[in-house]
């Protein structure tokens, strides 16, 4: 029978979850709710009797101190007779990790149960009409993708069982279809293939004299998806540029190879071990180890289901280093998010869009829970806000790993077994690769709920623990992760040269009912694929079994470069690896760059800019992200050196993170990022330079050397079938090449996510600003030389290194005045590289006490941050700032976002040495650190233009996101 236990808090114990729900309901604009009580529900299918059930409740499920329980289904409590009861159950087939753990614990107690499911029940006191109840259920309590809602105490919860699958091989007749029928087929099956691609497939099957099976077509769609093959970056682009000094037209053949990868190739750094080939780029860490880094996006799933989308985003990204070479050990996570402003009124949202605050809370929660559970410190990140991210938030997740240098490459061998390790396969995440390659619409919330994967960090942690052991014993020859495209992509890539035979019925399933195609393309999480030589098979199985990790042989590599897919011995698909990987038609796309005609605004000068400074500090983009950062464990693994929060009370904004991956070594890895999509509105070329300069500055500021600094590019762009969007992308790529060459910082990995647009119900398209995240990794020879950005000693001098120019275009200051302007910061690359090297050298020589770069909000914001982080005042004199000739105004000096500028706190005794060191760049001694906790800036004529207590400034900076 099915037993039911309901668990709730005893009086006097705070119902944390219920309290959060009450807050969320209020934020939804519903005011009639007095309180929310949350109840945990366990449904146990077992033949044991009530006394055994009581044992289970009292010894296992219920905390005897803080909780009470009831057997059976209870109505509203006596003291809340009019309360609304809402239960949230998992949909059939959705993984229930708590139930799985509880079943294991039952066995530990010597009891047996056939099945268990968990659910959440809410008792909501207050007066609510039916529409409000529905709204609360949909927007706050349940996630429609994976959960079902039951109202009241009578209705039955969903049946968790699914029907078994009966093999039925599906053939899709395409040979006779005309163009429009081909397009319709692509649309009907969510293949997201273009007409040219569909025709290529049609020709291939006409030559074969047969029609494809569904699995073949699905595999082609997945392998050829923008997400997997990056058609835009590898195609040919005809570029036209107009509106500048002269119109020009040129052709770019393979954007990636001719820009980003070209810089890496031309720089030819001997310390690059593996670049652009594997799941992550690998560079040399020391004589014995390499470090790798990968950043991915998980935008569309996070738009639909922020918590699950972000959790599987970081989970998937962690699997990239795990699947690089023969597997790296993850040592740090990074996260960068772009949302709409979180204070949007609920009625300002387009249909089909979640509120940005809910998106943000969900995304942060997902990254937190997955990263923390994996035991990987989340050490660096950023959160940006722009309303154009409304229907299309961006979620970048990064992971750094370390691996022995002799484990950096793998290659499957003929005859190796194909072994899938880790999670079971379910219907989750079907069509993720193709889904992420299309444009979002207001209907996506419903149509693509199956494209959201469900994560379980502990499964992945177990896989990691056992894989590290199997790697050390040399039990496999190659490894990759099951990411987008699932087994189809993983086996397809690993067997590209050899071919493979796969028996799909052998893949372990979460529940019955999956067709062979669903098994093949499912993007169920926490699965890795390894190639195991016959002689190691038994030992490999032993290693995984010892820690309860499922590892199953599903086929073998080697089949004359053919892929044969079988189910119960019957062939369901057969593809040539060559056609799969090389059959995709080449593209020619048009890009048209129309230089925007912009002008500088006319803003009235003031005598006091304190209020402007405070307003910029309070902008969501600049404001403290402490609420986010503290929720991440940033110190697990014991290698933390420079934390994300620094200063006298540990709450100042660090420029970058430094970790020590080998606890017995003083060598460190610095991890930072640069991102400034606002500049794309003026010119993506200068945006790219600014992002790279910012990433380099951030690393330099904490003490990274410039000798081994590597970059990653992650482009999130609009629909690049549109010539204007594509032109911006081309310009950004050109910027990446120029900047990487100038700094001597090769790109080692990257990823693009195109089609980040949202179509509203009324047909309006919202295009995100062209967003390029530059992630950067640098090596620190001796972590004891690292510095942080907080001011440290009164009497120390403040130096501003770098020239301040008239560059307020797309700045925070102009945004404050609702202007865009024209003068976007233009990085002078030779100067930028020289400046970065000089600052790095000054830090390496121990001449710098604190260092912070000027970015959003310019000099005024950077210096203010240094004061309140350090709990010390500062006096600065704008007359000493090294300015370009066209800088004539106080607001320009204060808030210009000119790149390549660093503020240094130095001991006056070192002034002479530093003056010598910086003789080739422009700089000024702009002030000193004071002990009065006052922040004072004087203009060129000696008038005070900013004056505030540092506590006031800090409050402006901390208040907006103090949730």
């Amino acid at each position, binding site marked *: 029978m099915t037993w039911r236990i309901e668990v709730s808090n005893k009086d006097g114990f705070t119902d944390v979850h219920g309290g959060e729900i009450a807050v969320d309901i209020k934020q939804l604009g519903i005011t009639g709710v007095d309180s929310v009580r949350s109840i945990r529900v366990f449904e146990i299918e077992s033949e044991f009797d009530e006394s055994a059930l009581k044992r289970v409740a009292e010894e296992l499920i219920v905390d005897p101190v803080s909780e009470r329980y009831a057997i059976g289904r209870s109505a509203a409590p006596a003291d809340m007779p009019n309360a609304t009861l809402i239960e949230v159950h998992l949909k059939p087939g959705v993984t229930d990790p708590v139930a799985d753990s509880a079943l294991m614990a039952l066995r530990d107690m010597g009891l047996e149960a056939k099945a268990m499911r968990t659910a959440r029940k809410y008792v909501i006191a207050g007066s609510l009409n039916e529409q409000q109840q529905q709204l609360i259920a949909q927007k706050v309590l349940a996630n429609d993708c994976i959960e079902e809602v039951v109202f009241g105490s009578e209705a039955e919860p969903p049946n968790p069982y699914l029907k078994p699958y009966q093999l039925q091989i599906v053939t899709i007749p395409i040979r006779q279809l005309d163009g429009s029928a081909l397009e319709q087929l692509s649309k009907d099956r969510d293949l997201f293939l273009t007409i040219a691609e569909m025709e290529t497939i049609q020709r291939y099957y006409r030559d074969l004299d047969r029609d494809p099976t569904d699995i073949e077509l699905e595999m082609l769609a997945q392998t050829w998806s923008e997400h997997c093959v990056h058609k835009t970056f590898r195609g040919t682009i005809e570029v036209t540029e107009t509106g500048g000094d002269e119109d020009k037209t040129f052709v770019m053949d393979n954007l990636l190879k001719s820009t980003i990868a070209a810089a890496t190739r031309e720089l030819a750094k001997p310390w690059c071990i593996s670049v652009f080939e594997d799941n992550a780029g690998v560079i040399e860490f020391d004589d014995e180890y390499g470090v790798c880094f990968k950043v991915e996006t998980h935008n569309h799933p996070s738009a639909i289901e922020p918590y699950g989308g972000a959790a599987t985003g970081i989970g998937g990204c962690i699997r990239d280093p795990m699947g690089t070479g023969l597997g790296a050990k993850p040592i740090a996570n990074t996260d960068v998010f772009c949302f709409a402003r979180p204070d949007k009124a609920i009625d300002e949202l387009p249909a089909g869009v979640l509120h940005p605050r809910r998106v943000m809370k969900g995304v942060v929660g997902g990254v937190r829970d997955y990263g923390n559970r994996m035991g990987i410190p989340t050490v660096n990140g950023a959160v940006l806000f722009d309303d154009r991210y409304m229907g299309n938030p961006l979620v970048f997740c990064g992971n750094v790993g370390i691996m022995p240098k002799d484990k950096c490459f793998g290659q499957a061998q003929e005859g190796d077994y194909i072994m899938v390790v880790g999670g079971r396969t379910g219907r989750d995440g079907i069509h993720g690769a193709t889904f992420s390659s299309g444009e979002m619409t207001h209907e996506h919330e419903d149509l693509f709920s199956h494209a959201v994967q469900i994560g379980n960090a502990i499964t992945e942690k177990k896989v990691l623990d056992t894989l590290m052991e199997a790697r050390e014993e040399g039990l496999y020859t190659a490894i990759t992760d099951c990411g987008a495209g699932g087994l189809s992509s993983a086996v397809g890539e690993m067997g590209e040269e050899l071919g493979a035979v796969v028996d799909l019925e052998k893949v372990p399933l979460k529940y019955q009912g999956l067709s062979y195609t669903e098994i093949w393309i499912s993007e169920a999480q926490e699965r890795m694929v390894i190639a195991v030589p016959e002689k190691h098979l038994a030992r490999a199985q032993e290693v995984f079994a010892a820690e309860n990790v499922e590892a199953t042989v599903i086929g073998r590599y080697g089949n004359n470069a053919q892929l044969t897919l079988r189910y119960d011995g019957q062939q369901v698909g057969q593809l040539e690896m060559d056609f799969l990987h090389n059959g995709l038609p080449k593209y020619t796309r048009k890009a048209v760059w129309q230089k925007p005609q912009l002008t500088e605004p006319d803003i009235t000068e003031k005598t006091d800019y304190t209020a402007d400074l405070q307003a910029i500090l309070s902008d969501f983009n600049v404001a403290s992200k402490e609420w986010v950062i503290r929720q991440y*464990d940033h110190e697990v693994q014991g290698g933390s050196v420079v934390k994300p929060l620094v*200063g006298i009370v540990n709450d100042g904004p660090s420029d970058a993170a430094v970790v020590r991956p080998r606890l017995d070594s003083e060598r460190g890895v610095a991890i930072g990022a640069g991102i400034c999509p606002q500049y794309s509105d003026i010119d993506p070329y200068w945006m790219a330079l600014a992002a790279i300069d910012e990433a380099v500055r951030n690393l330099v500021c904490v003490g990274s050397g410039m000798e081994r600094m590597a970059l990653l590019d992650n482009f999130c762009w609009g629909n690049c079938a549109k010539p204007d969007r594509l032109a911006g992308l081309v310009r950004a790529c050109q910027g990446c090449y120029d900047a990487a060459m100038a700094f001597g910082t090769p790109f080692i990995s990257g990823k693009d996510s195109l089609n980040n647009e949202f179509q509203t119900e009324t047909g309006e398209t919202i295009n995100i600003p062209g967003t390029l995240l530059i992630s950067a990794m640098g090596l620190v020879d001796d972590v004891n030389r690292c510095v942080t950005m907080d001011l440290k000693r009164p009497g120390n001098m403040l130096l501003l290194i770098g020239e301040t120019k008239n560059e307020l275009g797309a700045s925070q200051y102009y945004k404050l005045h609702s202007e865009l302007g024209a003068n976007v910061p233009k990085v002078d690359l030779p100067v930028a590289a020289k400046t970065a090297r000089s600052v790095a050298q000054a830090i390496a020589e121990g001449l710098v006490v604190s260092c912070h770069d000027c970015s959003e909000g310019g000099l005024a914001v950077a210096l203010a941050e240094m004061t309140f982080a350090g709990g010390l005042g500062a006096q600065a004199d704008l007359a000493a700032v090294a300015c370009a000739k066209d800088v004539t105004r106080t607001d320009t000096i204060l808030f210009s976002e000119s790149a390549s500028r660093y503020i240094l706190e130095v001991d006056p005794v070192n002034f002479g040495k530093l003056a010598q060191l910086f003789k080739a760049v422009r700089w000024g001694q702009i002030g000193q650190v004071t002990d009065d906790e006052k922040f004072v800036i004087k203009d060129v004529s000696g008038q005070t233009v900013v004056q505030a207590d540092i506590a006031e400034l800090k409050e402006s900076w901390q208040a907006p996101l103090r949730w």
Partner: protein
Amino acid sequence: MAQIKVLVLRTAGTNCDGETCHAFNLAGAVSETMHVNQLIANPALLDDYQILALPGGFSYGDDIAAGKILANQLIHHFRDAVSRFIAADKLVLGICNGFQVLVKAGILPGGANGSSTNGIDTTITYNDSGKFEDRWVYLQPGTSKCVFLNADQRIYLPIAHGEGKVRFADEGVFDRVKANNQIALRYVDADGQFGDYPVNPNGSTDHIAGLCDATGRVLGLMPHPERFVHRTHHPRWTRETIEAPDGMTIFTNAVKYFA
């Protein structure tokens, strides 16, 4: 001095095992990790060690409640071995999730004579803030009987948890724990004063951050001593002089106990 052997027990979701081993090794011990399945298969393996450490992490995903499933395994598979271990004048250290396991297995605070109580009379539950937080805290020892601590040394360590609030079933349990001098560590500010959030980061009863058993040889604490064993672990090492990393006190005292 003979080699002191430390067993760092791990299972699915354990994630501070590496740095816990490292910290014990720095203190002069020889540490090894072991998966709980091995110990379940042969609980006598424990007899080879002098110190048992249950490190931080999210054992079994903290499903049902933090530390609960591993505590259930301890109770049903190797409780006798652990009881024997404690009775043999050996040491047990539970950090964060390990502390939660020891409490949920009834080993902490435990009975008056150091044995487990029959019922579970203490719990560690959700932070008042409702969220996981990583922050540094000052800790004041509350007893002189705990062999891991220097009774007069205030220490500074990071916490990283969402469920760290210690609660007792009733006043009687609390009185017994106080009477037995089992409150090992309390959250204080830099000057040793008690305070509300964030000084007491989770709302714990009587500011409790750690408990020891009646023998003083079993210590459980929410903060992570293994995360402050190098000067650059301190969040302000770039602005303050760090004499010796506070976390090492706990590991060094443990190893010295056998000297």
